[in-house]
């Protein structure tokens, strides 16, 4: 099910009433788990099997880690659990890279033909986070103890993996952040203003901005882009940059708002990323839950920046390329990660030597524009997952051709890009709108959600 499907409000309203009618934590958790499984299996019930398999592996291994005293045994179990989780992810996500002829006729060949289970990248990372946090003792400090029963542990881990607001496309919530929140939730504790505010902004970004832009950036596909003029191709690329932000930030805000209505707090996933002044600043602001996950569970274990410049650069490149490949089995994703890795490595020497100009208003504005353009070019490898098509797009964009630029396209990209820019300017400058102005704007945004939504398009990150 999708948050923008017409049946979702009905589903959520019914569940909301049932959820707050439950008088005990156990009943509430059971209702939440069942609703999450229903939400997940709405269009493809068989997908639940794999989700439950991941949960079983994660729960058994992490519970064993919790109960064991020997550190070497715990380390071996946690490694085994992480590898099992990664194996499931690799089999389903990177199966297109496996040469089929070696598995013809084997049971494995039928697995290879299965479609990519929705949300697998997210719930696998949740599973790894639970294993590592239990191993490090982070998740157990406030919620689990040595006396925790298997039943309670299994229920908590199941809720953590299947909690529907974040199940399909994040934010990737670390176990140590989510599990201590599990408990009885009361209707009177709902932060109504925060939840509605977040939901309206999320639905506005998704349905008004991203969905309308998706109909325009549709033309960024082969061979259609060959029949567009260079200025239009550049405008379409900016349009996609606005679209992917609005789509994913919108999704994350809806997830945060829905979780708040159920009494759970999810971490922010975006912090005005297009106002970043450097590539590293961008990655502290974009898909924060993934970048912090990669930092905690990959970059730091690799040694982080503690072993000199060359090793730091190698670690950065490794993390970015793997982060790119996390999105899918296409070399263009690796290239997209490499593009950002190169950016991070090249900018490092300059970050520690900022001069007066770089710190001036004009200098900061130029840095923001430079970073935005760098990121926008990178999105092309995200949109066109065939590398040669991406290169052809870039070549067409800089080669004069006889095609006429559509003014309507330019106008629409400006029209739907402007709210994204205003959103960033307000965020970056920390403009304080009066509460009345803020509420009037939210009322207008809600009006536009109802009257000016684009075609219902699946969230871009659902494919990951």
């Amino acid at each position, binding site marked *: 099910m999708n948050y923008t499907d017409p049946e979702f409000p009905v589903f959520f309203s019914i569940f909301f009433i049932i959820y707050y009618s439950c008088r005990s934590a156990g009943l509430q958790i059971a209702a939440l788990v069942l609703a999450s499984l229903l939400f997940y299996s709405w269009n493809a019930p068989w997908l639940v099997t794999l989700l439950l398999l991941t949960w079983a592996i994660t729960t058994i291994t992490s519970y064993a880690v919790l109960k064991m005293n020997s550190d070497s045994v715990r380390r071996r179990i946690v490694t085994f659990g992480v590898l099992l989780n990664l194996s499931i992810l690799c089999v389903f996500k990177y199966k297109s890279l496996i040469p089929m002829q070696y598995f013809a006729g084997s049971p494995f060949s039928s697995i290879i033909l299965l479609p990519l289970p929705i949300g697998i990248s997210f719930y696998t990372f949740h599973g790894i986070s639970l294993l590592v946090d239990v191993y490090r003792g982070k998740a157990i400090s406030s919620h689990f103890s040595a006396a925790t029963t298997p039943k309670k542990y299994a229920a908590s881990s199941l809720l953590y993996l299947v909690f529907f607001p974040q199940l399909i496309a994040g934010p990737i919530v670390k176990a140590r952040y989510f599990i201590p929140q599990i408990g009885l939730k009361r209707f009177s504790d709902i932060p109504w203003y925060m939840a509605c505010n977040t939901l309206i902004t999320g639905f506005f970004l998704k349905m008004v901005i991203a969905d309308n832009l998706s109909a325009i950036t549709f033309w960024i596909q082969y061979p259609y882009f060959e029949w567009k003029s260079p200025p239009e191709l550049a405008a379409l690329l900016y349009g996609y940059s606005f679209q992917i932000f609005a789509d994913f930030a919108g999704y994350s805000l809806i997830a945060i708002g829905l979780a708040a209505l159920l009494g759970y707090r999810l971490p922010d996933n975006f912090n005005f990323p297009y106002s970043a002044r450097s590539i590293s600043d961008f990655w502290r602001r974009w898909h924060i839950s993934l970048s912090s996950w990669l930092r905690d569970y990959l970059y730091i274990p690799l040694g982080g920046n503690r072993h000199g410049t060359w090793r730091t650069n190698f670690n950065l490149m490794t993390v970015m390329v793997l982060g790119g490949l996390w999105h899918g089995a296409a070399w263009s994703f690796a290239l997209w990660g490499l593009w950002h890795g190169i950016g991070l490595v090249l900018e490092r020497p300059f970050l520690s030597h900022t001069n007066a100009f770089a710190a001036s208003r004009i200098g900061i504005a130029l840095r923001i524009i430079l970073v935005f353009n760098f990121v926008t070019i990178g999105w092309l490898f995200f949109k066109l997952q065939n590398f040669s098509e991406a290169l052809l797009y870039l070549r067409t964009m800089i080669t004069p051709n006889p*095609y006429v630029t*559509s003014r309507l396209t330019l*106008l629409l990209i400006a*029209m739907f890009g402007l709210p994204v820019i205003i959103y960033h300017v307000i965020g970056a400058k920390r403009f304080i709108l009066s509460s009345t102005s803020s509420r*009037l704007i939210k*009322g207008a945004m*809600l009006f536009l959600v109802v*009257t000016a939504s684009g075609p219902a398009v699946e969230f871009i990150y659902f494919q990951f």
Partner: protein
Amino acid sequence: MRTIFLTFLTLVILYSGFIEAVPPARDSVTVSQEALNRQTVERYRYRIKAPIVIVGSSLAARFAAASDSPCVYDLSIAGGSALTGLSVVAQKQDKPRLVLVEINLLDRPIDTRFAEAPLWYRRYLPFTWVENSPVSRLLTAIADARGSRSEIKSNAAMRAEPLRLQQASYDHPPSATAMAQSIKALRQTINVLRQQGIATSLFEMPVDASLENRPRSRIMREAVKAAFPELRFIDAQTLSAGASVQTADGIHLEKEEAALVLHRLLAAFGSVCPNNTAPVMEIRR
């Protein structure tokens, strides 16, 4: 919270008053092809009644901008086939007298996004219709202020590559399975319409002369004629009067050409709308 919802309600009431006072333009500008398709279907579902309805793909959708005759409504869906429009006609209470079915891209399946009945309450909320979207109204006002619609004219250089791709595509016959399914679906819908007293005729949109007799066009034409011998069929040759038509990319007619072809098509069914067979738009060649 209260301020947010009061602002929302106030805007809805004010905007409803505005759209009541200022009706949408017939040729309103939409954000995308998808929005245009939605608008085409919504207008037919909610407020337009015409004795002749044309259903087809983006080829016949060129008629929409070429005529404002109240006698005919163009329910063609860009990117889809005639089956989508036919299914919308079959669902409507107020039936037309005649449905004209374009056969060129009949092998495409029904597009359920447009064919499925929308949520019942949308009929009563005009501010949620595409033609009343604030974005569409704003784009239309801008286009009106500039005195033009974005109708891109092609030239030989721009047409060459798309035409080459169309030629390559038209060298392949349509999928036999898809054809069989579409013809079956078409027969079922035509039978339903016939029981409701609605006549159906078939026509073939003219395309570039180099495409007219390639396998795709020829097989489609012959299959449809063989499947529906009892229905009147007007072929592309008749509609283009034997002359080569002007297209933007080999298959989509330019505006003036579409007006001329529509004029010929409606003239063949003059008895349905005897006083209104000619498109209002001036025809220039």
